[in-house]
């Protein structure tokens, strides 16, 4: 469904993402992991269009997204959350979802009714999404007044407001406890249950290993492994990327 073809992003001499190819299948939860600075967030930014790739292509169902602007990719069905939460703190919870209704179907509404109708933040679709995110009681509260966990839930709800086909979650468990991680796993499964494909970028291994169907591992911008969680856990390259190779440690001991 979502395919990266030989995707690279170089910042000067730094190869943040180097020749990465991936295929994410419709309806699955796909994990993207790797040590700090391995190019995970850059990959997300290449998929959503925040950065233009140096080489390579991003394809969604055979359509080439590479040259599309971000708002066009949203219309194609790509949505994301941010590692450091970026809500509209000056708007209410419901308004945060209201402004995000920019999906393909929503764009078809008449120009005037889409932009210049008051009260749309109380629409049934927004209430449904707030209910889904357990935020209905906070509907008219400014987003800046929410707790950290509520902000994370609101950001995910906002990403879902455009009815995306694929949702990119950039470290949704950052700053969360193990317990929160379990709740998050349920939420991500619920998102999958809505028919949304999920690309999960995450550090919390319990979460990634527990819920993903397949995983790709990045290190120094390149893909070093791809497979089911069980396969990834057995992979030697992945172990050495995370823990340092045994060989290298021995060299250090002798030095």
């Amino acid at each position, binding site marked *: 469904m979502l395919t990266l073809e030989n995707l690279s992003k170089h910042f000067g001499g730094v190869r943040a993402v180097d020749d990465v190819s991936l295929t994410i299948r419709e309806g699955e939860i796909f994990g993207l992991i790797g040590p700090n600075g391995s190019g995970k967030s850059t990959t997300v930014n290449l998929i*959503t269009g*925040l950065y233009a790739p140096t080489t390579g292509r991003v394809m969604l169902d055979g359509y080439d997204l590479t040259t599309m*602007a*971000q*708002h066009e*990719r*949203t*219309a194609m069905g790509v*949505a*994301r959350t*941010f590692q450091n939460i*970026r*809500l*509209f*703190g*000056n*708007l*209410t919870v419901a*308004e*945060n979802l*209201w*402004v*995000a*209704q*920019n*999906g393909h179907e929503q764009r078809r509404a008449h120009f005037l009714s*889409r*932009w*210049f*109708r*008051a*009260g*749309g*933040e109380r629409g049934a679709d927004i209430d449904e999404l707030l209910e889904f995110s357990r935020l209905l009681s906070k509907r*008219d*509260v*400014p987003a*800046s*007044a929410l707790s950290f966990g509520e902000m994370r839930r609101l950001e995910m709800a*906002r*990403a879902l*407001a*455009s009815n995306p086909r694929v949702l990119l979650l950039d470290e949704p468990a950052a700053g969360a406890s193990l317990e929160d991680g379990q709740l998050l796993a349920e939420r991500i499964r619920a998102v999958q249950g809505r028919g949304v494909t999920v690309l999960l970028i995450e550090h919390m291994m319990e979460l990634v290993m527990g819920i993903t169907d397949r995983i790709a591992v990045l290190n120094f911008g390149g893909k070093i492994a791809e497979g089911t969680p069980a396969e990834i856990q057995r992979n030697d390259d992945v172990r050495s990327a995370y823990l340092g190779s045994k060989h290298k440690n021995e060299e250090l001991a002798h030095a």
Partner: protein
Amino acid sequence: MDFYFGLLQIFGVHTLLGLSAYVVLLTGQVSMAQAGFYAIGAYAAGAATAMFGMHIIPAVLLAGLVSAAIACAVGFPALRVKGLMLVVATLAFGEMVRMIFFNLTWQVERDGALVGPNGAEGFRAIRYFPENGWEIWQVTTLIWIFVALVMAALWWMDRTRAGAVLRAVGHDEVAAQSIGLNLTAVKVGAMTAGGFIAGIGGSLYAHTVTHIEHGIFGVLLATFAVAYPILGGLGSVFGTLIAVLFIQGFLVEGLRFMGDWRSLLFGALIVVAMNLRPKGLLGDTPLRLGGLRRKPSSTPALQEAD
């Protein structure tokens, strides 16, 4: 009495000027081009009534549309840059407009006399109101009807999705882009609306003073345009109105008795006001009906989060 009506007219046209900057500021853009759009509106409406005998109402609307069209055309290249670069780019546009009117001579003969812009001398005899026997209170009322209509339109716009989108873009452009908003379209739309409002303000201004010249529409006026909404606060249109009354009513007229000391106090009082109310006289929390109904318990949390 005429003095007070004159004062009300100044408040009215300056409120329109401030509101034109308010719309653009909602998207987080500081535009120093508003005095330029105001000048375009003033010259366009003056030409329509004094040179071609148009009625005042269509002339004002025409001037608004001309300014809006130019604002739209300027918006596309100008809004590609942000922050201080945008300030410089819009400042340059404002000065360019001023220099065009400084050099523009385009006169036609009406009733045996030449009327129209005459270079550095300016555009004299925009005498629609005296020629048609309008009393000063009637002119003042007309201006405030336009002010009320624009304020009502912006108040209503702020309650629609368009208003929420403008504020979203103003708060975080990266997030706004990520949820599928076309930043260029939103910003150019705001600039076009701002151009329309500034054009209306300028056209009414030209008819109240009957003589306009390039020097009026300089950097000082552009600074006032953005100062009103910033000083008043971006919470609602009333912030701009309050700031106009504060600056034009209190600082300019109210302190006139202080003579030369006034200029000194003028700047000092604005600094004091901004320190006491850093988010504007009326604050920057969107004032909506939904907000008024909000439970008071949520207010302390809001202040903590700030």
